[in-house]
Every structure is written in C-alpha cells, then in structure tokens.
C-alpha cells in the first residue's frame, strides 16, 4: 500500500463524502420532489483481490450507471449505479414513464440518468470545493446499462489504471417513499490525496 490511511484520515474522507453527498442528495430531492436520505459513507482501501466484494447487487442483475472524470485539485472518477428497478423509479418521477426493457432504453431515458448524475456530482464537488477551496471540474457522464458486475468492474479497472491500489468512497442513498436505492462511488487518484489532507490539516 502506498497511501497511509490512518483512522483520522479515513474519518476525514468519510466526512468529506458526507458533506458532498448531502449537497448532492438535496439537489436530487429538489429535482424530484421526493425526500432522499444518505447512508453512512464507507471508505474501502482495496487491492485487486477485494474488488469483487464491492459489488452490492447480484452480479448478473441489470444496473444502470454513469461515470464522470473529475479533474482539478482532487482528481478521480465519480460514478452512480442504480439497480434497474431504482432507475425505473427515477424515470417514473422525472418523465412519468419507463422503458419496458433494455431494448426500449432510448436517448431520453439515458439523458435523464445522465442529468441526475450531472446534478448530483456537480453538487458533490461544489460542496467539497467550498470546504477546501479546491478547483474541481467534471466531464459529462458516460452511460452504461448492463450486468452489475460488468459495469462496476469496468469502472474500477479504469480507475485502477496507472495505480497500484484503489480507494473507493461509497455511499448509498434511498427514499422511504419508493423501493429505491442508488449508489455513489468516488474513486480518487491515490497519488493526489496528500493535497486534501494538507488542506484539512491532518
């Protein structure tokens, strides 16, 4: 392991994510008119052996996901994953219809998920930027709908590229009003963590 993550630093990453996702979930609630709540963020410091353990869903179940590259002072990848049924909840709320299946997943449905990701990740980064003074830019999200394990592993492998280890900050959000669960992952470049800890004074 090249990064030293003691308890204090893990706590700090969790707290940063909590603040960031707090902003993101509020934005989602504003957009949908539905109250969303956060679960406690978890920080996973992983090597390849443990990557598969990050798959919270049945590995072959259908999920809808996005991934966006983040550049600036805390670079990495931000990703959202929605089990198919949860994506359908978002589609019903936001466009009052849902695709009958994967073949029916047209550009409109994709742009809804991309927009949700855009708004949430944008607010996440803004909250972190306000706290740290960091400059952060995100690129438009890329979209996929496929087996959970295939989508997740594609995200993780790309984030792992050029790094020895992978750090994943994972948060789930849900709403009491619907059968819904969404997952957010931030995968920071581990070589750039010192800057964050420096700003936080730890």
């Amino acid at each position, binding site marked *: 392991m090249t990064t030293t993550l003691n308890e204090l630093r893990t706590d700090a990453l969790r707290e940063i994510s909590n603040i960031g996702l707090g902003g993101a979930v509020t934005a989602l609630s504003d957009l949908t008119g539905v109250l969303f709540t956060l679960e406690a963020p978890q920080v996973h410091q992983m090597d390849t052996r443990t990557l598969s353990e990050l798959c919270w869903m049945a590995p*072959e179940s259908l999920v809808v996901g996005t991934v966006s590259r983040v550049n600036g002072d805390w670079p990495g990848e931000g990703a959202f994953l929605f089990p198919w049924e949860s994506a359908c909840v978002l589609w019903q709320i936001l466009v009052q219809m849902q695709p009958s299946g994967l073949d029916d997943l047209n550009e409109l449905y994709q742009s809804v998920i991309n927009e949700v990701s855009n708004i949430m990740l944008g607010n996440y980064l803004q909250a972190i930027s306000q706290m740290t003074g960091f400059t952060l830019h995100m690129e*438009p999200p890329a979209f996929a709908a496929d087996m959970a*394990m*295939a989508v997740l592993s594609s995200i993780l*492998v790309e984030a792992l590229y050029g790094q020895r280890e992978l750090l994943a900050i994972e948060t789930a959000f849900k709403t009491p009003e619907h059968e819904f669960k969404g997952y957010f992952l931030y995968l920071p470049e581990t070589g750039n963590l010192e800057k964050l800890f420096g700003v936080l004074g730890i």
Partner: protein
Amino acid sequence: MGKAEVKLAGMGEIVFARGAGVLGCIGLGSCVGTVLFDPRAQAAALAHVMLPEAQEGDAAVQPGKYATTALPALLRILDTPPAFASRLKAILIGGGELFQNRSQALRIGERNVETLQRLLREARIEVVFEHIRGSSGRSFELDVATGLIRVRAVGSNFVEKDLSAALGILRRAA
C-alpha cells in the same frame, strides 16, 4: 452443466481444471476471460485479465491481472514449456466497452483484446473461440470434460457452442 460447481476466476485470478470441471467468469466488462486448453493433458487454465500491461512491481503479486503476465502464468500452470505452447488452444471472452462516448476513454477492453491476440499469435497459439469487443458485459462457463461453452449477456443474448473438436477433447466410450 448447471448444477456442477463452477470454478470462478474473480478479477485478476487464475483457476485450473484437469479432465473434468467447469471454469468460468461472471460479469466481464472490459476484462477478458482467457482460457488456455492443453489437448494432451485434457487440462484448462483460465485467467480473468483486467489490464493489458503489468506495472512495475505488481506482476509478481497477481500474474492473472495483466495480459503480459497472465499468459506465462497459464503456461506454467499447464506445465507447458513456451517452446511447446503451439499445441495449446485459446478462448477469449470479454473486452467490451460498456461506457460509450467517454471523453477520455482509455479503451481498456480493446487494448486487453489486442494485447492478448498479439501475444497468442506470437506464441502460435490458435484462438478456437472468441466472444469479444462490442458494448456488452458477459459471463461464461466452459465444461472442461465436454468442451461445451456457454456465454451469457444481458437481455436474450445467449451463445452455446460445442468446442470439443476444436479443443481436441478425446471422445469417451459411451
């Protein structure tokens, strides 16, 4: 096949079977399930390859993770000297690009496939079956005793093929 226990190769792992057994991977995205089959020993080894090239210092830890280290590791497991590699048969599954329109795409699926195909060509190992590239994720199972391969993707996409002749699997008395 269904009920037989499948030896699954997780990300970066290698699994092996001789004579009987089912090898497979679940949820391959940009990763490539890479099988080498030795007709003489009726044995197969499978690596769940994640990235094309090894990074310094990491290859020894998990050779199955990289294309460049996985093939030598599979030869070692099959106990095949590199000079005799051409008697082996290969199967490649995966290497898809699930995320379309990425602005800074690393094209890892494509690069995994290209690297593995080049290394197999250089070792003169014939690829007898491949289900690669495209934009979908895949799972597969290979029955080492019968040569039956099953590839699953989301939706109704399902491929089943008898590779016994291509792999040189010996016929057993009925």
